[in-house]
């Protein structure tokens, strides 16, 4: 299966070509080229998945891990070396399919969405770069290769958030995203170094004999790696960059900040899962608590936001929280006894990528139609945009967890895993699932029903998006409808054995009821033109409403800590020391040198013959010295 290397090389080629040719290429040509390449990559990924899973299980009943391509890149001596290669196992193959599908859809969609934008070629070039790095991340053969592509993903996210670089907010958002995730990646890097030092390799599956000596440090290393994952996956309190990242073009939000890049942290934990479960189960459970808190926090905030992309951003954070919780509640690697969460998490990652991309692309169509992100500019759009309406509703039902949409199946498995871990965790996650249903339908009603902004719509009638934008919607909606029926446990499970998904109806019934209550509540509050209930609630709980609207002032706290404490008390003195003491010493040296040179530069008269005399005198002097000595 050496051809899998093409999955990485083709998008890289596309990045180089469209990036270097730039505006010398016609926008349509750049777009077509990028889309065609991504299409080929998607086909290759499907073929890889088909032949990988088609090859069947080995004697132990698991799909073998394959490394079809590998090169030693940087040997450090001993067993420590950094390789670059391609690793195929069930989760990486699954991720290949997810990433290339969503990326392909976004490439097609961007034709319509970015039409006529300045920098169209640059946009496609960055999209290719992102696709390449994300694919490289998931097929990494070792933790260091993963880190390299991890950073590449961060860079391309930065470039795409700041795509509209003339807008101040976009520039600020891109910087914020980069700095926050870089800060988290510091933890990741330190974790990798500790891991490499004590296990003597960067491999995902180190020698178990070596691990014995590293027992104390392995949980520390894994915990530090999780900090990196928490940064990319926007776990509390490192989530602050993701809502701001919505300043980027909407298809980018769909691809990077909803479907693929933000689940990198989940993927990292899943990749290290055998080590987590074997040597650091406590750290794994800590991630579960972090994830649960993040899911709750983001769900509450999502209930009151007015910018539709921000609602979706917080819903993404909340859903990633679900995935992390699901991984974190695993207590063994046997799916029948406490290891169900692994499969559930990957399943939810898969379904979430599809329906969240669909939601974002739908939101893109809506923004395209009304030229605003604010809910106040919308309302009653169902008449104008039937395709967007239906597909958006599909995705809302899926994320709310309604049978038979895909979200139901994956969320049900997550809840079952949570209940198996502890009933408290189970009920908390069920409650958050209810909140999810509520805020998604609040969003849905506010966009498509509810109070219509008639003045705005009369002035500029909203229209359905062009075909290039609706085709991806329809495709993703079809996937959302069908994905739940995939026998996912057959392909991915914590111990690699086939696991038959069975719906636990006691859990499913509860979650369905809670989701139905959430939807009913949202219908009651937001369906009609007047929103008496919602408005009166907002007034009665104005403190809570305001705090949630301002995201519980987390950004302000960050602002305070960075500006008032770090900048004022630490950075300013250090800067003073640098300017006055370090630079001062160098300036002194330069000053002395300059003054001295003024004294002796009279010797440089510029007259050739005077130099000649000096030369002759020197030569004679040397000759005399040589004769005498």
């Amino acid at each position: 299966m050496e051809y899998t290397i093409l999955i990485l090389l083709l998008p890289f080629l596309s990045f180089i070509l469209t990036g270097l040719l730039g505006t010398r290429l016609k926008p349509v040509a750049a777009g077509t080229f990028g889309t065609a390449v991504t299409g080929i990559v998607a086909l290759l990924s499907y073929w890889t998945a088909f032949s990988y899973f088609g090859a069947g299980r080995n004697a132990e009943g698991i799909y073998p891990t394959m490394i079809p391509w590998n090169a030693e890149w940087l040997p450090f001596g001993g067993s420590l070396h950094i390789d670059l290669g391609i690793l195929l196992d069930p989760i990486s193959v699954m991720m290949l399919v997810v990433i290339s599908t969503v990326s392909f859809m976004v490439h097609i969609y961007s034709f319509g969405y970015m039409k006529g934008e300045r920098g169209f070629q640059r946009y496609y070039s960055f999209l290719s770069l992102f696709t390449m790095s994300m694919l490289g991340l998931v097929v990494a053969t070792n933790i260091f290769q993963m880190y390299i592509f991890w950073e590449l993903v961060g860079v391309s996210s930065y470039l795409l958030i700041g795509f509209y670089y003339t807008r101040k907010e976009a520039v600020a958002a891109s910087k914020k995203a980069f700095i926050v995730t870089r800060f988290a990646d510091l933890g990741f890097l330190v974790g990798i170094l500790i891991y490499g030092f004590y296990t003597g390799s960067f491999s995902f599956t180190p020698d178990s004999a070596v691990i014995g000596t590293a027992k104390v440090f392995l949980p520390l290393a894994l915990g530090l790696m999780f900090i990196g994952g928490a940064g990319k996956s926007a776990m509390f309190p490192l989530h602050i960059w993701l809502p701001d990242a919505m300043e980027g073009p909407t298809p980018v939000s769909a691809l990077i900040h909803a479907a693929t890049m933000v689940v990198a942290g989940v993927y990292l934990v899943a990749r290290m899962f055998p080590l987590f479960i074997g040597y650091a189960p406590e750290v794994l459970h800590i991630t579960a608590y972090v994830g649960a808190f993040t899911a709750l926090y983001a769900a509450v905030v999502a209930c009151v936001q007015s910018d539709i992309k921000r609602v979706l951003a917080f819903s993404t954070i909340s859903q990633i929280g679900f995935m992390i919780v699901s991984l974190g509640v695993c207590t063994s690697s046997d799916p029948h006894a406490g290891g169900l969460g692994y499969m559930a998490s990957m399943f939810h990652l898969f379904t979430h990528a599809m329906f969240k991309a669909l939601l974002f692309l739908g939101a893109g169509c809506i923004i395209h139609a009304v030229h605003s992100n604010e809910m106040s500019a919308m309302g009653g759009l169902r008449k104008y945009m039937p395709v967007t309406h239906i597909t958006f509703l599909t995705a809302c039902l899926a994320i709310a967890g309604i049978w038979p949409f895909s979200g139901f199946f994956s969320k049900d498995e997550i809840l079952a895993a949570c209940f198996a871990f502890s009933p408290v965790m189970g009920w908390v996650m069920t409650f958050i699932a209810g909140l999810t249903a509520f805020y998604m339908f609040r969003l849905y009603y506010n966009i498509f029903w509810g109070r219509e902004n008639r003045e705005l719509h009369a002035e500029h009638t909203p229209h359905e998006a062009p075909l290039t934008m609706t085709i991806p919607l329809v495709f993703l909606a079809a996937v959302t409808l069908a994905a739940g029926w995939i026998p996912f446990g057959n392909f991915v499970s914590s111990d690699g054995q086939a696991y038959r998904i069975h719906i636990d109806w006691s859990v499913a019934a509860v979650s369905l009821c809670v989701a139905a209550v959430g939807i009913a509540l949202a219908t009651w509050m937001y369906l009609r033109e007047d929103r008496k209930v919602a408005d009166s609630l907002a007034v009665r709980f104005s403190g809570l409403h305001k705090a949630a609207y301002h995201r519980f002032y987390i950004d302000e706290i960050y602002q305070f800590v960075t500006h008032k404490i770090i900048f004022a008390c630490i950075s300013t003195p250090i800067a003073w020391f640098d300017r006055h003491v370090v630079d001062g010493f160098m300036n002194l040296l330069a000053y002395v040198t300059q003054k001295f040179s003024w004294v002796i530069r009279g010797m440089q008269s510029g007259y050739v013959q005077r130099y000649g005399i000096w030369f002759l005198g020197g030569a004679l002097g040397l000759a005399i010295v040589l004769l005498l000595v």
Partner: protein
Amino acid sequence: MVHMEYYLIVSTIMMFVGIYGFLTRRNLLAMLISVELILNSVDINFVVFNRFLFPEQLEGFFFSLFAIGISAAETAVAIAIIINIYRNMRNIQVKNLNRMKW
């Protein structure tokens, strides 16, 4: 048979005449001629030492031939430079050429 010393005396005189000229002439062309005198004195030395000390070898002759060739090229370059200086400054008096400092 003329002794080797006579040749060396001639070349030494040429050498110091050249150095003196190089240091005292006020004209770039005259300085160039002085430099050629120095070079030629060295060439004479090469030939003389070869002829008297190692008569069975030819390195000295060839080396002086090379030196003549190189000095011809060098003279061409120098004259080109001098012509350019003349075009820029309308004379080639050394005392005016003091711009090449700090």
